[in-house]
C-alpha cells in the first residue's frame, strides 16, 4: 500500500520535472527582470557592476519631478499617452460597427474579400507600416504627386516630418493596422446569434437598421465590454514600436508616449535608473488599472475577465 502511494507521488513529481526546464525559462525571462526594479533605488552606471552601485533611496523618483523642465517634459509625455490612449478607447466601438455592417453585405465573396484584405495590415510589422507610410507620404510620394498634379498644393508637404496632427495621424495608422483584425472577434460573435431572432423580427416587419439596433448590437455588448475593460488595463501601455519608428526630430514632442520615453531615457541618454523608476511606476499603475477594471466588471456584470 505504502509503495503504491510512493509510486503515485513519484509519478506526480516526475510530471513536474518534465515541465521544470520550461518553468526555469519563465522565471529567467519574466520574473527575474522584476529584480531589475532594484536599479531604481541604486546609482547604477552601466560599465561598473551593479554590486558596486550605491543605494540612493528615492532619489530617482524625486528626480523625475525635481525641476520645472523635467516636470513639463513628463507632463507632455503623460498628455501624449493619455490623449492617444483616450482616442483609442473612445473609438473602441469602431470594430464592432465594422463587423455589424460587414455582416449586412449579402454578397459572400465580396464580404470574404473585404475581411481578408482588411485583416492583412495586422500581420505586417510597424517597420513595414512606416515604410508604406513613408513611400506614400514623402515629398515624391503618391499623395504629394497627386496633390501637386491636381494643383491643390504648390510645394510638396512633408507630412511625416510635421509636428501637426501627430496624435490624429498616429491614431489613423493604428486604426488602419488594427480595425479589420479587431472586428473578427465581433464577426464570430454575430455568427453565433440565434438566427430565429432575425427571422422573427423579419416577420414582424423590422427593417435592417431596426434589427441591428435591437438584436445585433445588444448581443455584441458583452464582448464589447470585456474588450473595453482590457483596453482600460492597457491604458498606459501603448507599446513603443509604432511611435519609435514614426518618431523624428519634428514630431518628437507629441509622439513620445510613456513606453517610448522610458526607452529614450535609458538608451538615448543612459539614465537607466530613472528609466527603471518610471517604468516601475507605470507597471504598478497598470496593474491597479487592470484590477480596478476587473472589479468594475465584476460589480456591473457579475463576471470577471481575469
Amino acid at each position, binding site marked *: 500500500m505504502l509503495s503504491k502511494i510512493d509510486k503515485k507521488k513519484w509519478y506526480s513529481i516526475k510530471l513536474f520535472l518534465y515541465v521544470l526546464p520550461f518553468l526555469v525559462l519563465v522565471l529567467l525571462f519574466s520574473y527575474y527582470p522584476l529584480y531589475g526594479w532594484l536599479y531604481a533605488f541604486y546609482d547604477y552606471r552601466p560599465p561598473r557592476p551593479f554590486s558596486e552601485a550605491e543605494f540612493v533611496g528615492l532619489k530617482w523618483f524625486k528626480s523625475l519631478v525635481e525641476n520645472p523642465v523635467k516636470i513639463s517634459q513628463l507632463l507632455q509625455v503623460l498628455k501624449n499617452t493619455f490623449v492617444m490612449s483616450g482616442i483609442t478607447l473612445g473609438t473602441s466601438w469602431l470594430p464592432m460597427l465594422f463587423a455589424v455592417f460587414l455582416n449586412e453585405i449579402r454578397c459572400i465573396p465580396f464580404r470574404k474579400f473585404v475581411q481578408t484584405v482588411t485583416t492583412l495590415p495586422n500581420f505586417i510589422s510597424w517597420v513595414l507600416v512606416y515604410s508604406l507610410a513613408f513611400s506614400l507620404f514623402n515629398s515624391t510620394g503618391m499623395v504629394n504627386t497627386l496633390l501637386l498634379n491636381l494643383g491643390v498644393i504648390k510645394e510638396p508637404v512633408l507630412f511625416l516630418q510635421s509636428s501637426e496632427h501627430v496624435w490624429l495621424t498616429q491614431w489613423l495608422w493604428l486604426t488602419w493596422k488594427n480595425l479589420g483584425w479587431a472586428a473578427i472577434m465581433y464577426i464570430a460573435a454575430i455568427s453565433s446569434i440565434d438566427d430565429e431572432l432575425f427571422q422573427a423580427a423579419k416577420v414582424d416587419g423590422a427593417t435592417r*437598421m431596426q434589427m441591428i439596433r435591437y438584436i445585433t448590437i445588444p448581443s455584441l455588448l458583452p464582448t464589447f465590454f470585456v474588450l473595453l475593460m482590457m483596453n482600460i488595463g492597457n491604458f498606459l501601455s501603448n507599446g513603443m514600436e509604432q511611435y519609435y519608428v514614426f518618431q523624428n526630430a519634428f514630431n518628437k514632442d507629441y509622439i513620445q508616449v510613456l513606453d517610448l520615453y522610458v526607452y529614450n531615457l535609458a538608451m538615448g541618454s543612459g539614465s537607466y535608473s530613472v528609466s527603471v523608476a518610471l*517604468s516601475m511606476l507605470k507597471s504598478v499603475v497598470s496593474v491597479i488599472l487592470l484590477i480596478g477594471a476587473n472589479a468594475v466588471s465584476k460589480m456591473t456584470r457579475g463576471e470577471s475577465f481575469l
Partner: protein
Amino acid sequence: MSREIALKKRRHESFGDQMVSIVCYIVFGICAVLCLYPFYYMFINTISANDLSSRGVILFWPQGVHLKNYSSALGIDGLFQAAKISLMRTILGTFGTVSASAFLGFMFSQDKMWHRKVWYRLVIATMYFNAGIIPWFLVMKNMHLTNNFWGYILPMVVSPFHIVLTKTFVESIPKELQEAAEIDGAGILTIFFKVMIPVIKPIMATVAIFAAVNQWNAFQDTLLLVTDTKLYPLQFVLYQYLNQASSLSALANTSSSSSLAAAAATTQTATSIRMTITIIVVLPIMCVYPFFQKYFVKGIMVGAVKG
C-alpha cells in the same frame, strides 16, 4: 386597399434596406482599397523604371517594366545576411514555440502533476505583468544574450497565450484516449508523442502561424539587444534604410537631389532599394496569409473563450 398599403410599406422598407446595403458596399470597398493600395503602389514602383519611381510619377500602373531591382537585391549591403537571420529565427523560433506550447499545454492538463495549478498560474500570470524593457534588457545582458542569436529565440519559447490555446484544445479531447494508452502501459512521453501530437495537429498549426509571423516581424528585440550588424534581421535593415531616407528627405530640396540620383532606368536608387526590400519582407506574409486566415481566426476565437 390594405394590401396596397402593405405593399407600399414593404417597398418603402426595402428601399431603406437597399440604401443601407449600397452605403455598406461603398464604405467597405473604400476600406479594401485603403488596405490594398499601399502594397500595390509599392509593388508597381519596384518593377517600374527607377528614374520614374524616384520622381514619384508611378501611381496606378507600372511603366518601363523591369525586374532588375529584384535580381540585384542580393547585392544590397547586408541584405543576404539579414534574410538568413530572419529565416533562421523564424524557423528555429517557431519550432521552439510550437513544441513548448504543445508539450506544456498537454502537461498542464495532467491533473496528477504535483501542484499543477501553481505552476500553470505562474506561467499564465506573465501575460498580465511586465517588468519593463530596461530591466529585461539588463537581465538579458547579464545572461550574455545580447548580441547573441539565441537572444531572439529563448525568451519566446514559453508563450503563455499559446499554452492557453493548446491546453484548451487538449481538454476538449476525450479523456478516454489517454486512459486507453495508459492501460496499454504507455508512459507519459509516449502518450504525448504517439497519441497526443497526431490529435492536436490543428492547434499546433495555428500556434505555428502565430509564432512564425511574430518572429518574422520582430523588431524591438533587435533594437534592444543587438549592435552586431551580422545579427540584424530584415526588419531592422529595412528600418535603417528608412531612417536614412527619412533624414535625407527632411533636409528639403529633395526633388532636385532625387532626380540627380536617378540617372538611368535600372540604376538602383534610394527609393528603389527601400521599396524592393519592403516588398521582399512583405511577400512571405502576403503569400501565407490568405491560405492560413482560418487558422488565425480559430486561434483568436479559442483564446477569447478562455483567456
